[in-house]
């Protein structure tokens, strides 16, 4: 899923300072699953804003709505009227949701309440870990299901560097060396041949480092 963290309250307060009618718009998608931008979190943000603004002597009208997914036009249509009636919209969606909303409602002032961080998985209660960089050329079949682009701090594709110690990466004793994990798993499977294969340079043009990517399915268009 897409993992996002809520911005600090002081940053969000700057967006809504002096506004009279604020809409906090939660998203029922990924940010709801990672417990940072769903219905409940939208209510919490609204309460925090009411308290903080109230202390400063401001009492704007703050309402809350949550849509199924802000990255789909049809769901955003359901809050067209509320958006039109607000002089500031704080969206709790990832960057994709913020941009789709901004594109659909060009007259509205739409602000991000979140910092979108990574594509990750819920690896332990309360912990999400980055494990995909969307490089557009998945090599997980050759790396025992461990992505070196996302999980090696240097994104190396041909095995470990000299910075691995006790299975950890040189950047932090808390970070596993992805190539150590790949090596252990491939060795256990008797597939070290996959580690021995020389991989040519990555085609970054297909990745997020290239130009904006678009996927079109003609049968649906």
């Amino acid at each position, binding site marked *: 899923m897409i993992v996002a963290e809520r911005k600090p309250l002081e940053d969000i307060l700057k967006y809504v300072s002096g506004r009279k009618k604020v809409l906090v718009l939660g998203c029922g998608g990924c940010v709801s699953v990672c417990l940072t931008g769903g219905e409940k979190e939208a209510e919490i943000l609204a309460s925090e804003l009411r308290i903080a603004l109230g202390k400063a002597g401001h009492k704007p009208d703050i309402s809350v709505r949550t849509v199924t997914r802000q990255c789909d036009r049809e769901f955003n249509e359901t809050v067209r009227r509320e958006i039109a009636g607000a002089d500031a919209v704080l969206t709790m969606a990832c960057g994709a949701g913020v941009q789709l909303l901004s594109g659909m409602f060009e007259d509205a002032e739409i602000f991000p309440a979140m910092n979108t961080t990574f594509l990750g998985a819920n690896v332990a209660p309360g912990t999400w870990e980055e494990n995909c960089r969307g490089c557009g050329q998945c090599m997980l079949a050759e790396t025992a299901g461990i992505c070196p682009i996302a999980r090696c701090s240097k*994104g*190396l594709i041909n095995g470990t560097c000299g910075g691995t110690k006790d299975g950890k990466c040189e950047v932090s004793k808390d970070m596993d060396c992805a190539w*150590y994990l790949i*090596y252990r798993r491939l060795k256990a499977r008797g597939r070290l041949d996959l580690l021995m294969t*020389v991989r040519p340079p990555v085609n970054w043009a297909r990745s997020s480092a290239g130009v904006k990517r678009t996927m079109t399915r003609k049968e649906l268009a």
Partner: protein
Amino acid sequence: MSRLSESLASGKFTVTGEIGPPKGINIEPALHEAEEYLKGRVVAVNVTDIQTAVMRFGSMATCHLLLDRGIEPIFQMVCRDRNRLALQSDLLSAAGLGIENVLALTGDHILMGDHKEAKPVYDLDVIGLLQAMVKLEQGTDLGCDSKGRPNKLDGAPKFFKGCCVTPCADEVEPQIIKLEKKVAAGAQFVQTQAVYDPKAFGEFMKKVSHIKVPILVGIVVLKNAGMAKYMNANVPGVNVPKKLIDRLAAANKGEEYKVSIKIAGELIREMKGMCQGAHIMTLGWDKYVPDILAEAGL
């Protein structure tokens, strides 16, 4: 042909040194050290490339200045700071300046250095960098024209291509597999991470006996017991045995350097028969290189 490649091809035990450019433009002291203590005593001198991700004077320019003083350089290149256009362009520039020896390295992560907010590049990994050098030597590059045909160079360079390995890594098999790949990608010589355990190095050399490129054992001069302990705790793949730390700790104050010289010389002497050369890294103590070589019996 570079003197380094000639020396290694002749089968002579080959010694290389290393200098690190300064943070600033005051390059003269580093050049002076190389001229005074390394010239004529080592075959070639490595120049580190933004070592440990601490921004500093450039490797290529330093290599060029060494050449001006009649010292053969080994141009270290890391993959951290340049994409494939810049790496290949710098390789051409280096060749144009008369630099032949290039040591391809991954490069310490930016988080190890003094510009932690910088964007790490690693467009190519070290295998890709070696492949790029081979392509350039063949008169082409990593790109292609609009019809998918390889680009043609107007004049091709020639390099003596090196790489590194960590012989005493806690898990050595992945290091050896990576070394095999580096050699398959074009590496012609190897300089190792610091080794302090001749027995472990001997075992490593047996495991890589199928890899037919010369290996120069890495000797990092231990300046004192504190440095040795620090390296054990923080530098991956480095293991200073307790008996060496004890010897450094027992040295009279102000005379640690004598023990440092002795240890470095002994290590070279003990490992001389196992490999094709030694790469001495003094971290600013180049003035002791003549004594270390004497101690090593070279």
